């Protein structure tokens, strides 16, 4: 282990917290782990970010997040329709000798302006949300918020990840395993999969495991709302030789603290629990670097 530790010097970890199933405790684990370990916290669940409710940081800066969308100059446009044909997202149509643009469908890939030989397409920024930068006095906090009605979360997640400071970081992901999660976990050193001992928890966990395995991201499991008995998640992990880092026991005190928007690490017994998880992760990541 000592050898591993030396490898860690100068390397800042990025750890993604995901789950598959929603409501298993991603934000609870993310915020408390960040707080216990003094790691930066980044809320990538931009459709419904809620980590700041618990961390309650002072927001020092708010930036607009936007994507580049095409603006078509009708004078320069000769009607070749190359832009319409190249668009994989059906965001452009050729209707009545005019290019029709559907802004909510545009992913901002820029293909339309690349293929236009007549320089008729320029790119303009379209705002889709905000990024908040702050700190709670101890740890740096970042949060992306997608505007209501906007369908595209990935661009704001990419913007957000570019702003991550050079320090150990927890990335709180959205539930599921779709593009938003893929964008959030791209390039991270380790994935923490939070689940619960229910059939739904296991079902969605398997999908999340498939995703992280496909992306070659080392991972470990946290079973939340667990009992003392061996549960279906542990049985599955044993069979699949997957590392269970911690079982967080079902505990009314946690529910009471959560319902008041309080941090679990305010209490020593939970603080020790998260410090222990953090140390386990450090060990895992350092050995993976070898």
């Amino acid at each position, binding site marked *: 282990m000592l050898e591993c530790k030396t490898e860690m010097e100068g390397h800042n970890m990025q750890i993604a917290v995901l789950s598959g199933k929603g409501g298993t405790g991603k934000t609870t684990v993310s915020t408390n782990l960040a707080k216990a370990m003094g790691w930066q916290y980044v809320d990538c669940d931009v459709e419904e970010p809620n980590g700041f409710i618990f961390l309650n940081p002072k927001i020092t800066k708010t930036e607009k997040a936007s994507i580049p969308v095409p603006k078509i100059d009708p004078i320069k446009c000769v009607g070749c329709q190359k832009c319409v044909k190249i668009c994989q997202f059906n*965001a452009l149509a050729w209707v009545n000798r005019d290019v*029709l643009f*559907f802004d909510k*469908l545009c992913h901002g890939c820029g293909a339309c302006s690349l293929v236009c030989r007549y320089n008729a397409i320029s790119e303009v920024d379209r705002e889709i949300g905000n990024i908040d930068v702050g700190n709670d006095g101890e740890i740096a906090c970042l949060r992306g918020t997608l505007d209501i009605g906007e369908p595209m979360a990935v661009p704001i997640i990419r913007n957000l990840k570019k702003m991550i400071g050079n320090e150990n970081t927890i990335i709180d992901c959205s539930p599921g395993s779709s593009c938003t999660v893929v964008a959030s976990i791209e390039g991270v050193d380790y994935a923490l999969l939070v689940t619960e001992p229910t059939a739904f928890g296991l079902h969605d966990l398997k999908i999340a495991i498939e995703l992280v395995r496909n992306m070659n991201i080392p991972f470990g499991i946290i079973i939340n709302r667990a009992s003392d008995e061996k549960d279906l998640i542990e049985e599955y992990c044993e069979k699949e030789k997957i590392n269970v880092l911690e079982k967080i026991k079902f505990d009314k005190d946690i529910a009471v603290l959560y319902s008041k928007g309080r941090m679990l690490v305010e209490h020593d017994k939970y603080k020790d629990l998260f410090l222990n998880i953090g140390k386990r992760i450090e060990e895992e990541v350092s050995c993976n670097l070898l």
Partner: protein
Amino acid sequence: MKIAITSVTKDKESVIDERFGRCNYFAIYDTESKSFEHVENKGVTSSQGAGIAAGQQLLDCGVEAVITGYVGPNAIRVLQGGNVAIHKFTGKSIQEEINLFLDNKLEKINEAGPAHAGMQNRNGRA
């Protein structure tokens, strides 16, 4: 004049698909030759913007009227922009709907139905 009918299968006796963007086929009827041509709807394989792709395809085919059930908000922009008349089917056969249309007896669709409605019956409907 070319009239497109949203169709579940590619034969004249097919049931009409009430979805526009996500229907399987368009039965395109030519009033001059009095014949049908069936084309696969390009919208059905789109990951998004199915109604736009379907509408574009019909404009490119020179279709001037559509008979269907519901048209989404994006598709209606394409079809209305291209001056395509949109009509609501009444539950009869494709040929009967065409006759009703030619007799001016089909109700016009002027407003979009809900977005993504066609995604609820992805495998075609019975």
